[in-house]
């Protein structure tokens, strides 16, 4: 049975384009223009993944409300916010609602598709434990590339997909400096420099929540960031 994606987006052209793109990839797509319409459909059947716009018609925060309700119905349902809003405030608010990722609308379709398939894989792995493990270990850090999860000193660190890709890009080659463009490429996003800075800050904070002494992500001013090797 094909995986079912729900798109809630009030702009018809974008909705149609995304629908076509997802269908071309073999997904089943249900597209909605508003919150009420989407909610009614979700009550009948939950999708396997939801792509939500935040501003929906007359409701500037309709997407947030929808996300809350979806999360209430399912803890594991992958949710992506896809929005024109790119302020840190909205990003943080969106992620706090329990979304798995937050991307701005200028994301390219291939990037979006990469994200969607990654989230599906993560959900899949959560349901059916994989036969083979694919874990990258850097001393205290372990990155599960199948489950898209990260653990620091054996304690899980909750990361969004974007953040996961960034940590992976940094930790793959400890000591090597990754500049912002490289990080964007690895994380399948096109954003401005200060958004990268915000992402890094959030990642550091999440690690620090697990281990207050965490200081592995180094800023190399003028160049980028690197994962500091132990010692």
């Amino acid at each position, binding site marked *: 049975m094909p995986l079912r994606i729900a798109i809630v987006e009030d*702009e018809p*052209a*974008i909705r149609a*384009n*995304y629908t*076509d*793109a997802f269908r*071309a990839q073999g997904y089943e797509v249900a597209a909605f223009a508003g919150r009420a319409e989407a909610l009614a459909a979700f009550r009948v059947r939950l999708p396997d993944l939801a792509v939500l716009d935040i501003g929906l018609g007359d409701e500037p925060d309709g997407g947030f409300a929808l996300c809350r309700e979806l999360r209430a119905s399912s803890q594991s349902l992958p949710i992506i916010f896809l929005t*024109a*809003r*790119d*302020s*840190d*405030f909205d990003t943080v608010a969106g992620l706090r609602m329990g979304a798995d990722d937050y991307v*701005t*609308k*200028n994301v*390219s*379709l*291939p990037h979006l598709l990469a994200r969607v398939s990654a989230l599906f894989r993560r959900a899949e792995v959560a349901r059916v434990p994989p036969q083979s493990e694919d874990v990258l270990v850097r001393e205290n850090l372990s990155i599960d590339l199948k489950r898209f999860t990260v653990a620091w000193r054996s304690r899980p660190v909750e990361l969004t997909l974007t953040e996961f890709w960034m940590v992976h890009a940094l930790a793959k080659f400890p000591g090597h400096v990754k500049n912002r463009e490289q990080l964007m490429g690895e994380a399948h996003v*096109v*954003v*401005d*420099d*200060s*958004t990268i*800075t915000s992402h890094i800050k959030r990642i550091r904070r999440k690690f620090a929540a697990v281990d207050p002494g965490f200081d592995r992500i180094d*800023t*190399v*001013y*003028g*160049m980028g960031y690197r994962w500091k090797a132990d010692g």
Partner: protein
Amino acid sequence: MRAALPALGLRSKLVLIALVLLVMPWAGYAYVRAMEQLLRENQEQQLAATARTVAVALQDRPRLLTPPAGTATEGEPTAATVHDEAKTLLAGLARPGLRIWVIDSKLKLVAAAGSLDAPAPPGAPPVFGPIERAVHFALRPLFERMFRTPAAPGEELIPDDVIFGGRELERALDGAPTTRRRPAPGGRGTILSASHPVWSGESVIGAVVLEEDTDAIVSLRNRAFEQLVAVTLVAFSAAALVLLAFASRLSWRLRRLRDEAENAIDSRGHVRALLAGEHARDEIGDLSRSFSTVLARLADHNAYLEALAARLAHELRTPIAVVRSSLDNLRLQGGTPGGATYLGRADDGLQRLEKILTRMSEASRLEQLVREGEREPFDARAVIESCAAGYSSAYAPRRFKLTLPDAAVPLNGSADLFAQMLDKLIANAVDFATGDDPVELTLEREPGAAVLRMSNHGPLLPAGMKERLFDSLVSVRRHAPGDEPHLGLGLYVVRLIAEFHGGRTNAMDRADGSGVEFEVRLPLV
């Protein structure tokens, strides 16, 4: 940019207007002259009347004019020869300052009495107020030069030329009463004389001459003048002082209003309300209130503009998403042969559009960050050192000359933002640099401040733009086709970040005119 004080301020103007008061002494002068004239005429009439009285008294006593025969010496009339009775008569009428003499028809002096000695000088000057007295005292030398006080000792003897050459005597002996003024000897004042014939029946047997000096009137006039000048000066000074105080207060209020209006918009475009004259019920209050209204509108407009970039970026993102997703779909479907070229071009255009959007939202995101961002201490020297290493490779073959202090330069703020500011400054310097000279990056420690200087060889700053270079959406670049979009946000970001660190920015030409220099001054921890 505070305008210099106006060439002719309110105060000077009002003081000039006060000069109109100086018409007062002129009017007073005319008045005093008229009074003097009146007094003179009065004196003349009195003198003439007295002369007539004396003449009438002598009229029927011709023997008084005929001295006893044999005692007279021809041509040498002396008081001794004059009849005692006449003398007594005249002495009764004479008073200090008034001289009376009588001659007979042969111009022989019969009797004389009184002298022209000025009467005792008038008592102390009229009582003025203390200010007037002070002015009077201060101006005394001036008064003495202007109005010579006629304190001349009168002539003791009647000069011969008066007796023998006086035409009024001839006329009096011809039967006509006459008055005449003649200068006092030594040119001091004027002597007024009135002569009247003494009739005896049908013939004139002599003449009475009364002489009085005009000192009294002159000194009266002079005193009036002095008083006038003193009063005028005092009034003028008082009026000028009051006007000056009024004008000072007025211009102080206006200046306060001006200063407040000038500073009502701070460098970030935030508008403060005006306080000066807010509650005043006069025109300045009106002005202040209408300024406030205008400023409030400006504030609204500024807020609208500030939000514009962010809103525009937001609004544009949706149509761009439509275009981007359509293009992506086209590409995913394989597209038509040859279509790749057009897809590529469309992508290029889209990328430029997105870059613009990114810059716009970057600036507005920074504005937000600067308002709310948290600060922590960091070492600016280390950040620059680290950044410079990256720049050398990123901007090769452009060379950099780095000058750093020996010790750490502790700042309070955000190292990330500081690095972002460096990025913008470097990008700007590299874009404008010409020739092979390296871009110079200098960090200096001054007392209490860290000074960052970025200097490059190249074109000078356009005149009149120095102040605005750091404003949002101000760019002085000439745009080349296919060039990266320049929104004039780079230096604005520099300013935002500098202000976040409590510092300020400055752009200037190099002293030798070979290029430009950008300076960021930040307070040390």
